């Protein structure tokens, strides 16, 4: 398991949170309960299984929703 912290561009609408949350939760390999989308700090944190999915795929899922990923950090759990 790895923990990713993904910094996005300033989030403005709270409904964005729901979108990002649902989109990332439904990805294979992402631990559902770990997904947290932080409105004010405009960050996503989640745990994922690196054997099933990689960070690029997660970032892409967020990017296709129209949110720009600024930078990400991955830490082994």
């Amino acid at each position, binding site marked *: 398991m790895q923990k990713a912290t993904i910094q996005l561009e300033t989030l403005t609408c709270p409904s964005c949170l729901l979108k990002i949350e649902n989109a990332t939760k439904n990805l294979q390999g992402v631990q559902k309960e770990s997904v947290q989308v932080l409105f004010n700090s405009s960050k996503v944190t989640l745990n994922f299984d690196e054997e099933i999915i990689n960070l690029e795929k997660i970032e892409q899922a967020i990017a296709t929703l*129209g949110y720009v990923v600024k930078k990400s950090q991955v830490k082994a759990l």
Partner: protein
Amino acid sequence: MQKFILEKKNNIAGVSALLIILGFTSEFGFHNESLAMWSLALASVLGVAPIAIQAYQALRVKVVSIDLLVTIAVAGAFVIRNFEESAIVTFLFLFGAFLEQRTLQKTRSAIKELTELAPESAWKQREDGTFGEVAIDEVTVGDILLVKTGAKVPVDGMVQSGEGYINEASITGEAVPVGKHKDSRVFAGTILENGTIQIIAERVGEDTTFGRIIELVEEAQDSKSETQRFIDKFSLYYTPFVLILSVVVWLIFRDMELAITILVLGCPGALVIGVPVSNVAGIGNGARHGVLLKGSEVIHDFSKVDTIVFDKTGTLTIGNPSVADTIYYTAEEEKTAAYLVSVEQESDHPLAKAIVEKLGEIGTYKIEKTDVARGGGIVALVDGHRIVVGNLALMEEEQIEISDQAHQDIARLEQQGNSLVLISVDGEMQALFGIRDQVRPNVKSHLQRLKELGVKHLVVLSGDNQGTVDVVARQLGLTEAYGHMLPEDKAAYIKRLQKEGRIIAFVGDGVNDSPSLALAQIGIAMGSGTDVAIETSDVVLMNSDFSRLPHAFGLTKAILANMRQNIAIAVGVVVVLLASVFLSEWMNMSIGMLVHEASILVVILNGMRLLRYRLPKER
């Protein structure tokens, strides 16, 4: 393609603004109906594109978003060929989003300033002994790092060599530079103002004190209160509800105009954004003023506090006792002082330290023998004289005669809240020292402010004797004062007050009062960024600055009021808009969208006021 459109959202808003102007001038200026229609239609299509994409993406992840409401509304306007409204609504929606982004950045600016203080690179020693610049992530515990003048200290560590002055404002809030030399501790995020030092890394990244402060503030700004969770839940069902409502209206009245107007008016924007905006701006204000509030529950509870319980030493007082009175009963003052210092220099008792500090290091006598009388003082043989230093009980034990005058002095000093140190030379009492822990400057007026802000009970609990505690309580105008309290007694006392239904904040130094800090509804640590303080408390006052306490208390009240205002504005606007659809003639989609976007901005601007919050001037 989708991504491109979304990225160019702001440009699209600009183009559609131009098209709308073109449309209206050609219609009203030149009565060119067809050009007007085409440009407005084009503006609508352009404008709705990014909104529709967002709506579609939300739907794919099973979210009914505001974007969907607007998209359907615009499509409806197209069907009834009302291009004016569709163009204006899309433009307002995009432009509103743009303004929201700008203003939201402002409300978050205070916290961003803080996080930007985090060091990004370090000069790390390579294997060959030279230093090279590396990214902060590459530094690990045990690395030797070079810090140059003007640079940020990259990690928490220990100085290996070199000297310098460091500004530790980012950790302690105190801007006066602190001197550092070999074996001094240095903290990440502080700035070396002059000198050059080499340090060994002890804690890196998120483990540093600064990293923890940032993490704490970042978590706090996004922590959700009960109210917020309720609103989130509510809005989850609210948006689909508006959609269904408008469909029902359309089916019943067969009025497309009315149905799409309801779609636009029902957007919940200001409601969902109001509370987090107040939260982030308020916590940001705190961070700027040396007050760390750990989240919105803390804000809520703190604002309701009616009893504040203080620890005495180090909280109300400076925690550094000093000599307040000196009385000699001998003509040979200097000699007595020198004997005293010679003896006291050997001790690290706080009272002994206070005396040495007061008299200076004038003792040059050789100590031949010392006996420590536990809880009493010291008996020593100095230069052939028998010196007894200690409290009254020790003097009596040593059968030293105390004059009536001395007895009077002792009684007087004790009543003033002094701890006493007596000294006798060869069985003759020669001097009396009254030592007091100074009350922090201005504490009295700060306590007064707390009372004005609505705190009813101010209580001091201390391990000191009741006399000393009473004096402090009288000086400061506290409502209750209890001495002889061990940490567990304090905790028991707090428990008892809580049973009476009081809401309690406990203010302590965070070191030996952790049970009380944890037990009270709000634990407030006066810590110079110490770990314990950060971990166990709900609120941290940086740099042990007592003046921040009234600010913190006033701030939480202001934040709570601000949240309520925002909720009221949001709900009020939606109610008024929906009512006016049915009750007035002038309401349409464009006005609805305008009012709606305006209300979001009002809510953000209202939240922003918290960034500038200051305690009102003293009465």
